[in-house]
Each structure stands twice: as structure tokens, then as C-alpha cells.
């Protein structure tokens, strides 16, 4: 047991990574959040409402399922943390519920968010409907075309979906546009960022809100295996929020090996990958010092993955730090490997995973486990949003 915590210092740094590289225009908002977030998150009234919404609205705790047929195939004990069973179909709602409550404490009446695949957008639109707040979602014009179902869900939930035509018209550009909106509407607006990215204190806020996943894993695993922690926890990493949440209570235990899985797209040797830690260099994206994919001039490049939730050119600064410290092992999985894993899980267990989560499943095949070892895979979301991709890839027989 060592004394490492997944929290940044008071300036928002995890070692060399993190911080708040923001224009002066955003300073008052970021300063306010920085001064108040811990007090809010630790206040009894926040805890009470957050806990009760997670239970009665989202459906937590999500089950920890001993996946017997997959275990047999892999040759060890595999457990699935069923984040796919959350309301709206992914872990994203843990964060949006927490942040919409924070907005309430700050007296903000207008909510903005960015979204890539639309999962975070739907989760944000959902909590805004729940709280009766104005909701504006920025989404790349290209992603709007690719994710028609989620776009309609957001609209039906009462959100305004703003297409972003700048840059490459995807997640990175939607995030830029959300930041610009915040600069232009600083006083009444709260920005609900969708992962452990962005300027301090966002990475810490989102990590803390998602840590409910890890705390439940710890308790549920002990119920099934008295006195023990899992030998491995595996989670996919886009920005890194489901992974940060699942890893959180285990960072300082040597008992559990943590594994983060990035998307390798068509392979890290091609130009079509999203494996940031493998292909990136230190730099600044969206107000945070972290590892990011960029060209030699420091222009941020567009990543690729079949999974819209994993194609972010940066990674949360906490992961850049965990990687540098060797506290988490990161690997990457190609489109093809993820698709195969999605098919296997569907056939073996009757669970159709989100493409993002299928990357975490695929990592099981890349490891050598002893038969007495235990592995928890964080199944971050369900496959509903990906059915057209699956249909296209697997055919219609």
C-alpha cells in the first residue's frame, strides 16, 4: 500500500500534467469552480441528492456480473461491471447528474456541453430535462450525420443541438465551440464537460463523480470474493472518465493491476488511430497540459477510431500521469479486434456492448491470465447507438 491519490495539487497538476491553460475571459468561471467544487461535492446536501438520484433515477448500483462463458473462453474469472445498465445506456450520466447539481449550487440556469457520439449529449440533455434547465449541445457537423438517433434523442429531450462546422467538424471542434460559448456567456452558464479532460478543476470533478463505479466494484467484488480485490481492472479510455472512475479506489493498491485500453483504429502504424499515449507528445489541448496527437508544428491532429467515443486527440491529464508513473498499464486495440470482441460478448453472454466498451473486452485476449486470476472489465455502455455500425460490419444474415 502506498500513499498515492488520483487527485491533482491545488493548481490542478498531476505531476507535469493538468493545470488550467485558459484565456483570461474564462478565469472568473474556472476560479469560481475551483474555489467551490470540493465544498459542494463534500456537502451533505449534495451527497444526499446525488446518491438518491443515482439510485432512483439512474438505477445504481449497477450489477457486477460474473461472466461464466466468457471466463471459460479467456481462461480466468471475468466479471463485468454493468455500466451499460445505467439510464441512457452508459456511465456518462454519473457525471452529468453530479454536474447539473453543481450548476444548481452555483446558481447557473443555462447548461452547455460538447458531444462526439452523442452519449454525453444525451446524458446532459436528460438531466437538463429533469431539472428544467436550458440545454445547448455542441456537436460536430460530421458527427451529427453519423449519430442521427442520438441527435433526435437530444432534441426530443428539449436540448438545442448546434452543429459545429469549424475544423474537422468532430468532437475536438465541438469542445472548442462549447468553450467559446462559455467565453461569450460567462455569467449564467455552466459547462458540463464530458470526460476527465479540460482545465482544472474539471478532470478532478469528473473523476470524483465517476469514482462511484470503482467504489461499487470494490464492495461488490468483496461480497463475491470475501477479503479480496480483483487482480485486474480493465477499462477503455477515450478522454478517460469511465477508466478514471473504475480505477480510482485501486490506484494505491499493489494488489490490483489497472489496464486502460485506447483505440488503435486501423493500427498504430497507420495514420488512422486514436491511441494518444502511444502516438502523442506532451502539449496543451482544451486548457490542459497532457499527451496529445499533434504534428511537428504543434497543430492538433484528427484521430480515428470506429468508436466515436474514443476518437479524442488528447487524454485526461490524470492518465498521462498514471502512465508516466507506471501505475496503470495502457494498451491499444484495433477496430477489428473490438468488433470481434463485441460479437463474442453478444453470443457468449447475451450482452451487446458499446463499441467503446468492446475495446476493453478485446484487451482480455491480449493478456495472459492464470486460471485462478480475477478480472473486472468495466462495460461502460450498451450497443444500441452502434447497431448500424454492427449491421454494416457483420452483415444482415
Amino acid at each position, binding site marked *: 500500500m502506498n500513499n498515492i491519490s488520483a487527485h491533482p495539487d491545488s*493548481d490542478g497538476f498531476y505531476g507535469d500534467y493538468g*493545470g*488550467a*491553460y*485558459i*484565456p*483570461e*475571459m474564462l*478565469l*472568473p468561471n474556472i476560479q469560481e469552480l475551483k474555489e467551490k467544487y470540493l465544498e459542494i461535492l463534500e456537502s451533505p446536501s449534495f451527497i444526499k441528492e446525488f446518491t438518491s438520484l443515482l439510485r432512483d433515477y439512474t438505477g445504481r448500483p449497477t450489477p457486477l456480473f460474473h461472466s461464466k462463458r466468457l471466463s471459460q473462453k479467456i481462461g480466468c474469472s471475468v466479471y463485468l461491471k454493468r455500466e451499460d445498465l445505467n439510464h441512457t445506456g452508459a456511465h456518462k450520466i454519473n457525471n452529468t447528474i453530479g454536474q447539473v447539481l453543481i450548476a444548481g449550487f452555483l446558481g447557473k440556469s443555462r447548461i452547455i456541453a460538447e458531444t462526439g457520439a452523442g452519449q454525453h449529449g444525451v446524458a446532459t440533455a436528460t438531466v437538463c430535462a429533469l431539472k428544467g434547465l436550458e440545454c445547448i449541445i455542441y456537436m460536430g457537423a460530421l458527427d451529427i450525420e453519423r449519430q442521427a438517433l442520438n441527435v433526435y434523442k437530444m432534441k426530443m429531450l428539449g436540448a438545442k443541438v448546434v452543429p459545429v462546422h*469549424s*475544423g474537422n467538424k468532430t468532437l*475536438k*471542434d465541438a469542445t*472548442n465551440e462549447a*468553450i*467559446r460559448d462559455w*467565453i*461569450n456567456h*460567462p*455569467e449564467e452558464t455552466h459547462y458540463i464537460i464530458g470526460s476527465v479532460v479540460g482545465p482544472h478543476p474539471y478532470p478532478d470533478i469528473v473523476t470524483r463523480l465517476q469514482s462511484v463505479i470503482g467504489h461499487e466494484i470494490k464492495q461488490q467484488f468483496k461480497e463475491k470474493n470475501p477479503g479480496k480485490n480483483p487482480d485486474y481492472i480493465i477499462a477503455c479510455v477515450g478522454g478517460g472518465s469511465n477508466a478514471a472512475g473504475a480505477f480510482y479506489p485501486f490506484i494505491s493498491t499493489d494488489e490490483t493491476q489497472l489496464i486502460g485500453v485506447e483505440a488503435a483504429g486501423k493500427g498504430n502504424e497507420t495514420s488512422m488511430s486514436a491511441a494518444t499515449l502511444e502516438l502523442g*507528445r*506532451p*502539449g*496543451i*489541448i*482544451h*486548457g490542459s497540459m497532457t499527451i496529445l496527437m*499533434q504534428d*511537428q*508544428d*504543434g*497543430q*492538433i*491532429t484528427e484521430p480515428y477510431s470506429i468508436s466515436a467515443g474514443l476518437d479524442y486527440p488528447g487524454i485526461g491529464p490524470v492518465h498521462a500521469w498514471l502512465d508516466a508513473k507506471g501505475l496503470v498499464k495502457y494498451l491499444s486495440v484495433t477496430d477489428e479486434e473490438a468488433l470481434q470482441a463485441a460479437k463474442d460478448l453478444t453470443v457468449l453472454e447475451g450482452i451487446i456492448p458499446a463499441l467503446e466498451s468492446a475495446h476493453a473486452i478485446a484487451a482480455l485476449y491480449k493478456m495472459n491470465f492464470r486460471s485462478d486470476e480475477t478480472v473486472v472489465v468495466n462495460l461502460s455502455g450498451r450497443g444500441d447507438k452502434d447497431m448500424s455500425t454492427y449491421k454494416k460490419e457483420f452483415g444482415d444474415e
Partner: protein
Amino acid sequence: MNRIDLLFKRKQNDILSVYFTAGHPEINSLAEILPALENAGVDLIEIGMPFSDPIADGPVIQKSSQTAISNGMSLKVLFEQLRNIEFNIPVILMGYLNPILQYGIENFLISCKEANVSGTIIPDLPLSQYLIQEETFIRNNIHNILLITPLSTDRRITDLAEKSRGFLYAVASSATTGSSSFHNADTSYFERIRSLNLKIPIIFGFGISCHADFIKACDWGSGAIIGSGFIKLLEHIESRKMDYTRTIADFVCRIKYGNSIQK
């Protein structure tokens, strides 16, 4: 002495600063635009270093940055171009931190010095992080200019004024560049700045696009910066194949005096 300080020693009022993006509309446009601006009697020039993700900029500067990058503009190319042009007025480079970090901060400042650049404006380098680098800027005689906004507290404005070098850049409204017009700006902010009796000159920027805006900025401070308005003019010049020198001189006249004396 730094050229920015020399300028303010000579002239305290009616300072006109013009911004354009390096590599836009064409990769070599700077070679025409910079001398044209200097000849037209502009006091200060800000050259944008294009970045893929300019979070503090509105659509006009975003688009010019994107064009510049696809034209092949980079810090390396920019410094090469600047070293090959003669100019005597202060030039300030404005842009985001990541390309500078990849170039190396110290290297960047040395290249600035070699290219006769006098200052920098780096919106996503906040005061706390700038202070870590301050000594390197000062050692290379590059003035880093800091921004204040209408939401900055008096205390913050005083801190920024103390650390900004050359002048203090007062963003006129809480907005991205080009998004709102200066004549609607809240004068209580201007009064607040005035009441602080800052020792450093104040230049207003964001949303300034006409003579009336310029006059108002000069009433409340030492002058103004025009960005998006000038970029739009460049696009107009480019699309109609107009003459840079004449059109820019005319534009500057209209901003400064309210009418064109060219025709």
C-alpha cells in the same frame, strides 16, 4: 530599448494596432501586408500565429487560421518570412501556447528577437503560468502582453497591469474575437479601469471595426486593436484581386479619420 516602449514614449494617444494572421490569405501575404500597414501609418502590428484550435477566437480568425495552416504556415516559416522583411514598427506575435511549446519557449523567444519581434500575446498562457517563464521573456527583451476583461476584478486588473509589459490589452467585452461590437460595450468597465490609475498604457481590442469605435477606444485608453474587421478586408482584397497597398492605406485612413483621403 524595446520598440513598444519607444512607441509609447513618443506617442501616448490614438495608437492604432492592426492584427492579421500569418499565411492568410496566401502563404506569402505577410510580405505585402506588413509593409502596406507600416506605410499606411499604423503604429503597431500584431501577427497571428495560426493554431488548429483557437478557443478564444470567433469565426473570422478561426477561418483565417485554418486557411493559413493548410497554406503551410508554421512558426518556422513565419520567422523565415519576418527575417526577410524590413520593418521599423513594433511587431507582436499573437497565438496559442501549444505550437510555442513544441518549438520550445526559449527557442521561440530567441527566434522572436532575431526576427525583430517586440512582443507576444498568448491568450492561453495565464498569468500564473507566465510568471514561471517571465524571466526568460525579460532576458530576451520580448514583452509579453496580458489581457484584462470586463469580468476581471479590480484586484486582478491591478495584478495583470503590474506584470504586463509594454501595454495592457483590454478585451472590450466578455466574448471571443469579432463577436460583439465595441460601441455597445459597457462604459462602467472603462470607468473602472480609469479609476484604477494604472501606470501602463491601455489598448482596447475585440469588436472594433470602424472610426467611431476607434475614437471611443482612444477616449478611454491609448488606442485600439483591429482584428476580424481587417481580416475581412483582406479576404475582400484577395477575392477581387485588388491592390494591397492602396486598399490597406484607404482602410487605415477610414479607421483613423473617418474618411478615405485616397480617392
